[in-house]
């Protein structure tokens, strides 16, 4: 589990803190990188802006993506991510409050691997994070790096 980064794209500070707490509760000690808006997320993924010079071979293991983000929306981040040769195979879990069919459809349409709704009940949230962690960090086999 070590050395595998989780990219959390989340604008809400509370949600960020709670997600971190939930990961901790599940002993998921991977490095958590937080991007607080869509632009920051893209900067990180493509090693541009504030993240220029980043070693892009250390890609995140999984991207936890909120949809409602300032500057660049979650779906736009996803679209660009999928359009890029280097990042297009990254596992992306959309983690959002919204249950609107439109969002789900578009999320999957743009190439998300999974769509999870953030529950209000924190205990449920912890359970959701546990399952996500278990699956995407342990059970799921990462796509091999392109040569």
């Amino acid at each position, binding site marked *: 589990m070590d050395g595998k980064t989780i990219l959390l794209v989340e604008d809400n500070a509370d949600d960020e803190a*709670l997600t971190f707490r939930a990961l901790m509760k599940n002993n998921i000690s991977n490095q958590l990188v937080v991007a607080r808006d869509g632009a920051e997320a893209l900067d990180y993924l493509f090693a541009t802006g504030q993240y220029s010079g980043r070693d892009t071979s250390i890609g995140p293991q999984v991207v936890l993506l909120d949809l409602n983000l300032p500057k660049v929306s979650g779906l736009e981040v996803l679209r660009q991510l999928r359009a890029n040769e280097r990042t297009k195979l990254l596992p992306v879990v959309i983690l959002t*409050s919204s249950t609107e069919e439109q969002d789900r459809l578009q999320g999957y349409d743009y190439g998300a691997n999974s769509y999870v709704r953030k529950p209000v009940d924190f205990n449920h949230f912890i359970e959701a994070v546990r399952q996500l962690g278990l699956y995407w960090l342990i059970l799921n086999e990462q796509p091999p790096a392109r040569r």
Partner: protein
Amino acid sequence: MSGQTSERSLLETPLDSRSERNAVENSQRATLNILEDFAAEKCELERGQRATLNILEDFDAEKTRMAGAERAVLNILEDFASEKSQLEEFQHCFLNILEDFSQEKRQLEGTQRAVLNILEDFEGEKANVELANVRLEREIKERKRAEEEIQRTNRELSATNKELEAFSYSVSHDLRTPLRSIDGFSQALLEDYADKLDATAQEHLQRVRRAAQRMAALIDDMLNLSRVTRCELHREKLDLSAMAKLIAAELQEAEPSRHVEFVIESGLTAVGDPQLLHAAMENLFRNSWKYTSGHPTARIEFGSSVEKEKHSFLVRDDGAGFDPRYADRLFGAFQRLHTAKEFPGTGIGLATVQRIIHRHGGEVWAEGAVEKGATFYFTL
């Protein structure tokens, strides 16, 4: 004869005297004269006779001529008579022709009158048609205006709908986020500061958490209700019995410990939106499931009957029922006839059912009594 007598008498008498001889000679002469006159007369008479004979001849000729003329005249009269009869025939024919003519004339007059009437009517009709045209034009204008209004209203409605959708979307999303914080950090407090919080403090925090969760449930329900009203209705033929059996199976699977007998009539079909009707049936079944949870065994029925002269469907249970005095509150949004402690729920289930049924053009109503179960009827 007396002449002769006198002659004889003269001859017989002796010639006595010259006087007597003179007398005789005179008499002779007188007689000769008379004889001459007589001869002249006779000639005259003969002439007269000849003239008369001529006249008679002429007369005969004339008579013949006259007979001829008479014949001719008779012929002429005959011809005349035949001419007359011909003429009379002609006259008859002529009179007939005149009659026919006058009949024709009457017919023509009749036709003329009819034509004049038609023309009148036509004028009248023309005026009517013109009036109707004017009215039609006005109607068309009004209808166009009404159509434009309808279109405008439709545009406004769909714009409003879109706004509502956007509103619902942000409501659901934006309201949940702070709720998550409330719940999450309350939990964090409970966990991290358990030793610093006494039982009361912990109970407070639990209430905070429960309240936040309840609000989330309410938001979800409101969203569902609004979605039900907004979304498009797709009509299909549906097997309601099969749907009921599915829902029953799901309920039983979720709580296998409960003993509930499902009596589902087969072959019940309807035309409606599959998703919405499934939601409505599910709501009704879940209600029955919930309100029979207080009893060790329960019976939930799904069937059909004829109520209010309409073919209707029903979901019946023998559970907690409800006080019929408050029946009109049953379908109100967030209205409840039981407390959350007795039976959990937000009170949106029946409001959703009602909205779905109404969207299908049907009715929904309920009958029940406290602790004697409830029956929910609906038509489509």
